[in-house]
């Protein structure tokens, strides 16, 4: 029998706010353990939560970007369970009245077709702390506890690991473009759980649902789903039943294993949080937030293709991050060749950033400086090859392109007097190539051209060198 997978994703996103969800502590990542804590986020006796309005606004903005219905009346609930990473042993979350209901995210399938993935809801809650396990003891770092966390639940509309991958990629682009989150999975800013079940092709009813946890990268999600689909399919084909349970993905072994079965499922005993007032969202507030709506990734991609004459792929690379796209647009604005700028950004710039483990925000080369470098090449003052050398220098020292060129004496040699000398030297030293050329092997001229470039230490204007060589060889 043929089976198809039914997949739904629950995505947790840490919001990019200055302070935590219910207290004034900083949300900064990477600080020493338990340094961004206070009585409130440690759950000390007697403390009360105070709602972070910026987090609510960011959640509403997300809702507007994915076409959700923004609730005019929403509330907070307590989700009860005991765990050492939960300071109060209940999490303040939203149960039956989330801030955002419904919505759509469009994904791109292989071959260019698109598919709309339904969003069930997006709600706001507080993140938990982080546990560390040592040899004989465990420790808890509460810095993360209370960070605003948005949960986005998709409809079971996904049918393959590739679709799940495409969905997460699209969602990530949206969240980054809206400044909602940096979505850095390594920092745990975007986390994902998945529900997957199998059913015979053509059947409407869902099969038994398995929840998978602990997938730490987007490609990890794809691999975990592929494994789980194969595992469940094999079981069904053997006539076994898939049991409803929660499984943990192990990225190292590439397998999932049982975490807890249905009998041990939590009863979270949700009830309305009496310490917080309901969230009433006014029309004015929504109008205000609507003004912050960024250009959606797909629209931006199309604009880049049209406005700057870029290939679809390059445009996609540039818009993957809002800051990268902004960098590109600033550089392209001052340039006569936006396509060349795009090539520089997507190859040299991203390459150097990756090498230096830096983000675009930390890039030592300013957009205007890149623009200047490209125009130096365009105008023939330096060659493209030298340009790479100059760029490396700019990246290392933050200097302007023209300054590097001047300091290193890298200006292209276009003066025929100097070039004549190099050309004659090359001809004198390589009689065989000269003979080959004259015997009709026109390609031999490229070798001689290379020799001239070498003699000029790369500074010779390649176009002029070609002309002079041709003249001397044919005329000689």
């Amino acid at each position, binding site marked *: 029998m043929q089976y198809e997978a039914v997949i739904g994703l629950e995505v947790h996103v840490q919001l990019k706010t200055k302070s935590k969800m219910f207290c004034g502590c900083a949300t900064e990542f990477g600080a020493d353990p338990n340094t961004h804590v206070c009585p409130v986020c440690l759950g000390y*006796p*007697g403390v*009360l939560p105070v709602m972070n309005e910026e987090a609510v606004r960011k959640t509403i903005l997300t809702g507007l970007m994915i076409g959700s219905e923004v609730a005019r009346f929403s509330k907070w609930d307590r989700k009860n369970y*005991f765990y050492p990473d939960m*300071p109060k*042993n*209940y999490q303040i979350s939203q149960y039956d009245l989330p801030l955002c209901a419904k919505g759509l995210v469009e994904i791109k399938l292989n071959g260019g077709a698109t598919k709309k993935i339904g969003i069930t809801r997006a709600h706001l809650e507080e993140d938990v702390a982080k546990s560390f396990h040592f040899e004989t003891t465990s420790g808890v770092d509460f810095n993360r506890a209370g960070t605003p966390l948005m949960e986005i639940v998709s409809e079971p509309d996904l049918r393959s690991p590739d679709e799940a991958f495409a969905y997460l990629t699209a969602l990530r682009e949206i969240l980054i473009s809206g400044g909602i989150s940096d979505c850095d999975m390594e920092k745990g800013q975007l986390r994902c759980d998945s529900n997957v079940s199998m059913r015979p092709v053509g059947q409407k009813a869902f099969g038994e649902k398995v929840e998978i946890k602990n997938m730490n990268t987007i490609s990890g999600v794809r691999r975990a789903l592929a494994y789980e689909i194969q595992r469940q399919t094999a079981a069904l084909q053997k006539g076994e039943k898939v049991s409803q349970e929660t499984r943990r993905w192990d990225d190292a072994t590439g397998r999932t294993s049982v975490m807890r079965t249905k009998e041990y499922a939590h009863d979270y*005993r949700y*009830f309305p949080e009496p310490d*917080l007032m309901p969230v009433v969202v006014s029309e004015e507030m929504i109008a205000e937030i609507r003004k912050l709506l960024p250009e959606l990734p797909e629209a931006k991609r199309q604009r880049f293709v049209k406005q700057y004459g870029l290939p679809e792929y390059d445009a996609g690379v540039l818009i993957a991050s809002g800051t990268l796209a902004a960098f590109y647009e600033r550089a392209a604005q001052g340039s006569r060749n936006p396509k060349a700028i795009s090539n520089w950004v997507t190859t040299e710039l991203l390459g150097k950033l990756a090498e230096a483990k830096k983000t675009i925000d930390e890039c030592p080369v300013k957009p205007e400086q890149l623009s200047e470098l490209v125009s130096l090449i365009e105008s023939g003052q330096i060659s493209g090859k030298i340009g790479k050398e100059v760029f490396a220098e700019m990246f290392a020292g933050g200097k302007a392109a023209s300054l590097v060129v001047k300091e290193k004496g890298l200006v292209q040699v276009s003066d025929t007097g100097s070039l004549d000398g190099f050309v004659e030297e090359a001809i004198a030293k390589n009689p065989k190539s000269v003979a080959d050329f004259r015997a009709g092997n026109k390609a031999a001229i490229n070798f001689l051209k290379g020799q001239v470039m070498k003699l000029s230490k790369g500074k010779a204007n390649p176009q002029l060198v070609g002309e002079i060589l041709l003249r001397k060889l044919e005329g000689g």
Partner: protein
Amino acid sequence: MSLHTLTIHELREKLQRGNVSAREATQALLDRIQAVDGKLKAYLWLNAEDALAQADTIDRGGVARNGKLLGGVPIAIKDILSVDGQPCTCASKILKGHTSVYDASVVQRLRDAGAILLGRTNMDEFAMGSSTENSSWGVTRNPWDLERIPGGSSGGSAAAVAADEAFAALGTDTGGSIRQPAALCGCVGLKPTYGRVSRYGLVAFASSLDQIGPFTKDVADSALMLRVLAGHDRRDSTSVPQSVPDYTTTLGAGVKGLRIGLPKEYFIDGMDREIDAAVRAAIKKLQNLGAEVVEISLPHTDYAVAVYYLIATAEASANLARFDGVRYGARVAGEDVIDMYGKTRGAGFGPEVKRRIILGTYALSAGYYDAYYLRAQKVRTLIRQDFEKAFERCDVILTPTSPEAAFRIGEKTDDPLKMYLSDIFTISVNLAGICGVSLPCGFTKSPRLPIGLQVLGKPFDEENVLRVAHTYEQATEWHKQRPPL
């Protein structure tokens, strides 16, 4: 006259004139506590040196003479409120040795008003009880009869004020925990409207019902204390951004033309005869002073106790989850973390607290939520609407505070349900979120025990409640009676 017997407004006059120093006032209380608290056990913790040092700072700064509302006045604090650097155990073994790391908002307000934070008073564990017998640190005695309970849960605060061991004390009221002990000890206990006083720093029992209020020797002091405590606080989202009137200036306006509602459901056959008589005499008195009396009905009164014990315990089951031995308080080691939770909470909580956590957990469980918690919330709305309707016909409501005077220690400890019924006249007030005060209105004959009169008002209408209470009090001598210690 010894200093410790003064009211706050009497003491303030002396402090402001410079006739008495904050140190002398504090020392007078310390002496009184030394003399009688061995019998009463109202205080759980007292640091004489620290209290005197606070007094000296106030004396040096001239704080008592610069018009601050509580400049130089020592105040006792129920052991459920956070005072930076002081222990806060909620009378529970699970918080043994725990020291607060911040000030509750009301404590900050007391400090700002120039008060001296004197010591911590006994209570039922986590404010769960009506007799202070549920304290893990021993029972507080009623100053009028040492064989009897002081009421609860704020029994220590009530006994301390009634026995002149404090000029005033803070308590908390979730279902009557200020008003009932005030009635049983013969002092004034005020439960403000929900949202009137910030709960930040109050260790929550039932968040939607808890409210902080003062115990005082007379109504004028209650008004003064409320003026200090009330007001919006950014740290408590349920506190209301509404201006605070000067309650002390409207006290003397009299009751002429004021309509007093008597709920027929509260005046029933089988009520203690002496209490019934005392309350009816008080009504008569107010009528003579110019008030009108109307009969009203609060038809859902019978459901109040049941509704209360579902909502309060449900909230408590979550509120008390944080006491797990991980971050603070007592910890009993276990095989693993789950075992540690069980052992810590098993050893740390007393039987009444465990009973309520279990009850609340059950009420919220899948399959029972709709039948218990949700239904209770709906009935709570009906109870609130009862009061809204009643207040269309009257300005304040008068009832007895407690169905009986102070009972004997141990009398009800074996029957939780009987104990829960001690609060039948006070519980609806918390469910409705309105305000109320209890003040002395007589004594039983033998033994001679105080009887409390409860005055209830509309939300945020503490002014009328205090005005009626003050008018009655000034026309009687009950508030001047002192226990024979």
